[in-house]
């Protein structure tokens, strides 16, 4: 019962938060100079006027805001201003699964490598293995995707010809490897370092000493006693990390020419495609808020002290 009350309270808090984020996004997007009617080949004045009317851009901003909120509440963002025959929801429905698939794969990759490295590091604390792992993950983290991705393409695709350079081809596996590696590498460092710290923390707990004293096997101690406890901080880290990786990553999608949300966000922002940008922004903020909510609930389930404090 206490858990349900806790969950309900968190949910109540999440909705106004989403509304606030959307309101700020709406006015920020509209405050940017320029309009979706600015094109590289200039439009005749009469046409501009009639398009503005069609898009409702001629109405007062507040009126537009009210209509935006009303429609957004039911998931209707209207048609894209640039891809005029397509609705924003249809575009998101097409692009989101692609970004999400990449994001999930990248996160799985980062988790599997990051967890392993973190645990090894912790158990070999202050040996050369620990130093080597920590140095390489930090190095990995300090090479941003905008450097890593083109480098990856230059080496593995252009020079060695092992993988296709770019493209998606409905997610055929050859096309997925590069982006997943480039996306995942970034999170490995964070996960490995986080886990190393928390494993070290747990290892010093008295119940581990007890477990050892009882003569339990090392494997059992690591998996059942240490890892279960040490994974807790990871939940808080994963929620926002996953939500940001799910909605697409601009650079990696651009370099590998992946039809995900990140590329739409960029072209939407450049062309002032208000409906498209706001649609993606809504999805992104809903995801971030939703994931955090989920993390709170999981933590609440795992650790009763948290829900009591709240």
């Amino acid at each position, binding site marked *: 019962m206490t858990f349900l009350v806790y969950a309900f309270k968190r949910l109540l808090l999440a909705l106004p938060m989403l509304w606030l984020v959307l309101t700020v996004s709406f006015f920020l997007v509209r405050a940017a100079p320029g309009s979706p009617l600015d094109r590289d080949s*200039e*439009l005749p004045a009469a046409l501009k006027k009639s398009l503005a009317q069609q898009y409702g851009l001629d109405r007062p901003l507040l009126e537009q805001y009210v209509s935006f909120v009303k429609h957004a509440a039911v998931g209707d963002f209207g048609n894209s201003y640039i891809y*005029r025959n397509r609705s924003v929801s249809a575009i998101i429905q097409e*692009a989101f699964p692609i970004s999400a698939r990449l994001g999930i794969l990248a996160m799985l990759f980062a988790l599997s490598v990051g967890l392993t490295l973190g645990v090894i590091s912790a158990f070999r604390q202050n040996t050369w293995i620990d130093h080597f792992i920590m140095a390489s993950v930090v190095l990995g983290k300090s090479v941003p995707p905008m450097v890593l991705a083109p480098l990856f393409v230059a080496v593995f695709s252009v020079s060695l010809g*092992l993988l296709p350079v770019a493209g998606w081809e409905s997610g055929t596996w*050859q096309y997925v490897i590069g982006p997943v590696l480039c996306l995942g590498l970034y999170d490995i460092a964070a996960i490995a370092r986080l886990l190393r710290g928390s494993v070290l923390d747990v290892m010093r707990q008295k119940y581990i000493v007890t477990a050892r004293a009882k003569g339990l096997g090392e494997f059992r101690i690591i998996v059942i006693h240490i890892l279960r406890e040490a994974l807790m901080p990871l939940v808080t880290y994963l929620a926002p990390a996953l939500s940001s990786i799910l909605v697409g990553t601009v650079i990696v999608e*651009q370099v590998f020419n992946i039809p995900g949300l990140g590329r739409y966000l960029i072209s939407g922002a450049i062309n002032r495609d208000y409906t498209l940008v706001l649609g993606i922004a809504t999805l992104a903020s809903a995801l971030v808020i939703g994931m955090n909510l989920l993390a709170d609930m999981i933590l609440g389930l795992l650790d009763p002290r948290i829900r009591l404090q709240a």
Partner: protein
Amino acid sequence: MKTPGIHCLIGPILLLCFASQSMALAKLKTFRMANTREIESLDPALADGNDANIIVRGLFEGLVSLDPKTLQPIPEIARSWTISKDGLIYTFQLDARAKWSDGEPVQADDFVFAWQRNLRPETGAFYSHHLKTVVGAKAEGNHTLVVTLGAPTPYFIELLSFPVFYPLPHLAIKKFGLRWTEPQNLVSNGPFRLREWKLKEKMTLERNELYRDPGQVKLDRVEIHPIEDPKTAWNMYQAGQVDWIRSVPPALRPRLKNHPEFHSSPVMNTVYLRLNTQGHALRDRRVRRALSMALDRKTLTERVMREGQLPAFGFIAKGIPGYPWRPLIEENIPRARNLLAEAGFPNGRNFPNMTLLYPSNPQSEKMALAISTMLKRALNINVSPSGRERGVFYDKLGHLRYDVARSDWTTEFNDPKSYLDKFTADNASNNLTGYADAEYQRRLEMASRIQEPSQRFSAFARAEQQLVVDDAVIIPLYFNVSSSLWKSHVRGLVDNPRLFYSLKSLSLGQDFRSL
């Protein structure tokens, strides 16, 4: 230590995959091209820019097209036509073989329907202003179209190659509304039909079996990859994933000059500076003329831009047959200094600090820095470069909140009118200089009424002289060049100054191997 092992495995597996894929595709002649962006729509009325036009011309066809080599109109659905003596009534005989991809015949009605629809403001057709040359269109039977113009328009036949003049399948549009261009709904009449369109991923066209002249189509399939990043396009080209790219990264162009697959040629695109004629000092035409005269366009093209651009001493690019093309602007620094002194700024004294506004990109930045330096050296005035994000740039331009701004213009049809009409007073949305001169307007109107071609052209030439020399509303800088790469097995692709490409005329040679 693990890495070499994984390598040994991955390599052969990938090779196997590609090999099996290529066997399946080997029979199909598939041409794979890169576009520079995803196109907005497949609706011929909403198609805008080269990326869209290439595809739309593959899927649809109109009365006429242009020959990619000569840029002269060639008949498509119109088998022949007659023009009345006064140049106002055009009668087209249509090809009875023309069919829509759903099997319905393409009839004269379909043109009338399309033009009426595209003229309605709610359609929002980008080039509907061209339709306004027509005052009446009627179908006489199924295969005769009679078109009446408001005034003689020597370039009317060429205008008909614009997708906004294409026929439309009225049944499909009535049935599906805005969604008629979706792959499952699209009905078209061109050499190809839409097979698949995955937004921002790939569009696939396939040979249209119902095309009226199937013998002309040599490709089985066309794949269009929208790639915004030129470096990605170049990588894909190198790896053989695409056969043709039209945006070569600027930094690579000088290096690729001698590459056998690199093609570069002048295009009818003029890069120029707009001057805000309402601005404080720029209100005085002597100041504007001084700025234009003080530049060194040869240095700009040969030492700064370095891609083969040609210096522009006029606004209208070379390539309009019969137009008396000659250099109009005289570069003369001493005279420029005198003009500036006459206007009250001897040796640049008291001249207000100005900015040269440009949309942020490396090419424009190079240009702006060079111009700024040239003006400082020649006239001792400060015109500082100011690069702005695209939206901000257009916002400032549209509200005349600039002094000098980088612009460029690609001619829409091969006639001086396409260039010069931009700067009339009633064309405020395109003019964007605050220039409104009655004499200029009168000159253009007069020139438009002249029927005899050479007299007509000289009248336009006089107006061009007023625009770029006497009033110096704009400062032409250079004529751009195209740059693209295509594989040696691609046949029928020709560079032309209008970047008019036709998928129908392409084929793949013997040396073609599918990836």
